[in-house]
């Protein structure tokens, strides 16, 4: 029995390239076509979000469970809304840090969720590699909502989408990522995504927060490294300051927050050195007055709010693409 769609296929419509992922763990194994597929699907999801009834029954009957071992209201709610908008059943588990002692409890926990009928698990965990462990040992699909310092693919995808939407392309843009690169999963995933889509990436931060091996050819795609923000930001098309965690100062990596802000804050003066059309992104939540000046955060060039809206649409697109992969 052939459906209309299949009939269209036979009569000559072209097939989109196959999606190869059972899990979304990082962008390092994505192709350009897959990212473009995500963008197109996100466009469709944005249309749904523009309706009065922001809901379609596509993932009806599917169970999506979010498992967050790190606090994060924003990302978790973003995923929950995305799942609900697609008609899926959603449950959220917030494991407090104290219940995370050994990973056996991680595998056991996810194993139980799988037994409860989860089709997709969205997980955030403070240990790099945790979602790989889960994906290796269990059959359920895993979306990485952030693992340690390692990856945050859905954030990078929504950043890419936001840039694409506002500027029309990513190819050839100069993107400057500022701050604590060493501990940033947002930076790492963005490096993969941006270089794949043809952007030039500049990483800028204090030497103590730039990890070793960034310039190794084997390591990561080619990026430029700079410790002076006034140099780095010249003619930038996109500027992305990263959240500075206040405990970095406690660990002796920077002498004080004040000095960090003095040397690395994205403020109006510095933003003027970028292109006049430059976009300001931020993965959130922001430390206003630390890595970003309040007037820049809420200024005309800031697309931070669009990032949040796009975040729900991107996550809907990913849940949709992953869920329809079948068993």
């Amino acid at each position, binding site marked *: 029995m052939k459906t209309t769609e299949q009939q269209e296929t036979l009569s000559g419509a072209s097939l989109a390239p196959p999606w190869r992922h059972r899990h979304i763990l990082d962008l390092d194994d994505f192709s350009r076509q897959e990212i473009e597929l995500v963008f197109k699907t996100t466009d469709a999801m944005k249309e749904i979000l523009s309706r009065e009834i922001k809901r379609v029954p596509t993932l009806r009957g599917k169970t999506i469970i979010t498992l967050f071992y790190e606090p994060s209201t924003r990302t978790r709610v973003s995923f929950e809304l995305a799942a609900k908008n697609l008609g899926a059943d959603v449950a959220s588990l917030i494991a407090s840090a104290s219940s995370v002692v050994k990973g056996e409890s991680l595998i056991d926990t996810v194993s139980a969720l799988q037994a409860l009928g989860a089709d997709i698990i969205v997980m955030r965990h403070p240990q790099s590699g945790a979602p*790989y462990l889960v994906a290796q040992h269990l059959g359920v699909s895993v979306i990485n909502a952030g693992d340690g310092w390692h990856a945050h693919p859905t954030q990078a995808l929504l950043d890419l989408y936001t840039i694409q939407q506002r500027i029309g392309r990513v190819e050839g843009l100069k993107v400057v990522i500022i701050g604590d690169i060493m501990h940033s999963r947002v930076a790492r995933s963005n490096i993969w995504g941006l270089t794949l889509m043809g952007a030039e990436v500049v990483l800028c931060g204090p030497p103590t927060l730039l990890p070793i091996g960034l310039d190794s050819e084997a390591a990561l795609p080619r990026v430029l490294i700079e410790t002076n923000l006034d140099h780095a930001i010249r003619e930038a098309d996109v500027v992305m300051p990263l959240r500075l965690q206040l405990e970095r100062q406690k660990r002796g990596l920077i002498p004080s927050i004040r000095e960090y802000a003095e040397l690395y804050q994205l403020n109006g003066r510095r933003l003027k050195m970028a292109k006049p059309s430059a976009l300001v992104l931020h993965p959130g939540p922001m430390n206003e007055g630390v890595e970003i000046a309040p007037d820049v955060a809420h200024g005309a060039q800031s697309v931070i709010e669009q990032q949040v809206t796009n975040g729900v649409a991107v996550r809907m697109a990913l849940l949709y693409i992953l869920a329809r992969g079948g068993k």
Partner: protein
Amino acid sequence: MIQPLLIKGGRIIDPSQGIDHSGNILIKDGTIAWLLRDEGQETCLPEHCLVLDAHRLVVCPGFIDLHCHLREPGFEEKETIATGTEAAARGGFTTVCCMPNTNPPIDNKAVVDYVKDKARKRGIIRVLPIGCISKGRRGEELAEMGELAQAGVVAYSDDSDPVRDSRLMRHALEYSRNFGLPIIDHCEDTTLTEDGVMNEGWVATRLGLRGMPTIAEEIMVARDIALAELTKGRLHIAHVSTRGSVELIRRAKEKGVAITAEVTPHHLTLTEERVMGNEAAPQPLSLLSYDTNAKVKPPLRTRREIEALILGLKEGVIDAIATDHAPHTEVDKRCEFGLAAFGISGLETALGALMGLVHSGELDLPLLISKLTIEPARIIGKEIGTLRMGAPGDVTIFDPEAEWVVDPKAFASKGKNTPLAGRILKGRVMATVCGGKIVFQDKHLRLEKSHDIKERVRE
């Protein structure tokens, strides 16, 4: 009464005597009776002698492991002296020196006696205990080294911790001169490695893991060498893993400092890329990434360090190879990389892994065997690691060409934590003899009775 054993027709390699030729060895009353070049005759055979046909096999002194963790007393879920010595025997080891990070730690005669007693009753090869440097391994006060020496330890160490306090290290090196036993240090400046889980470098950056820089080892190696020079104590560096350490040890030896060093099979054969999964194709990351079986201290490093370590072995800067066998339970390893225990279960794969270096031409076989036999024997000052007449009947017989697949489930060790699972190794122990008794024998190996052979020959 152990039956006499004739090991016939093998390639006998005994670096202690500079021997490398085919021949026959007779072990009688637990010691080496004679060793003769192959003349194809079964003359002078005692009654009811067992005959092991070692045709096409290498016959050498039983291996000596200067550094392994038998976990008993206190951590019997990870390993016991029984299972650990069984694993050692399968790996061709006839003597192991066990580290004192047990519970209670080996810092007094009672625990030494416990270990020796257990080894006598349940162990199948020779177990030589290593005593703590500090009381309780707490790194504060010297342990009663005299009592420990009398009880029979062969060295002192606070492994898996370094001796952080330089003053304590100085006193340990000075005081131990009384007993002529080496101080073995696990060199790691923990203020630089704090919370680190693998080598510091591009792989750690790639994986988002905190790294441990090479200088963390080198800083302490340099400190220990300076202290050894000052105190004239005997220093032994455990599991050397960096180029810089090799260089420091080289210069120290040139100056005449009483220093020896060891390296592990895994540091000689695996790089940090093993943490990413398949070393041949590490990127993009697969579900096999963040492999906790590759999590070890000191960490697996780079090709550059490996080349320096191999050169160090060849030049004699690194005296011995020791496994640092560190078995763990599945619970300790089957978890997030950052939370997993450090350590590799290495007794049963040591020879196979090291033979890779022989087959690739990086090391020659007699040199390798010396690093596992006479050199470790010299460090602990025992008359083993040799096939001299009268020496203990400790012999290892292995097939240098036999290929086999590493299957941790088949290990005798309780520790299945090996980064070599599923790999094909070329080089396999076929039999291990300890004190004249066959403690391990491959199922394909045939033993015959001399009586039967004489019957056959007569016909």
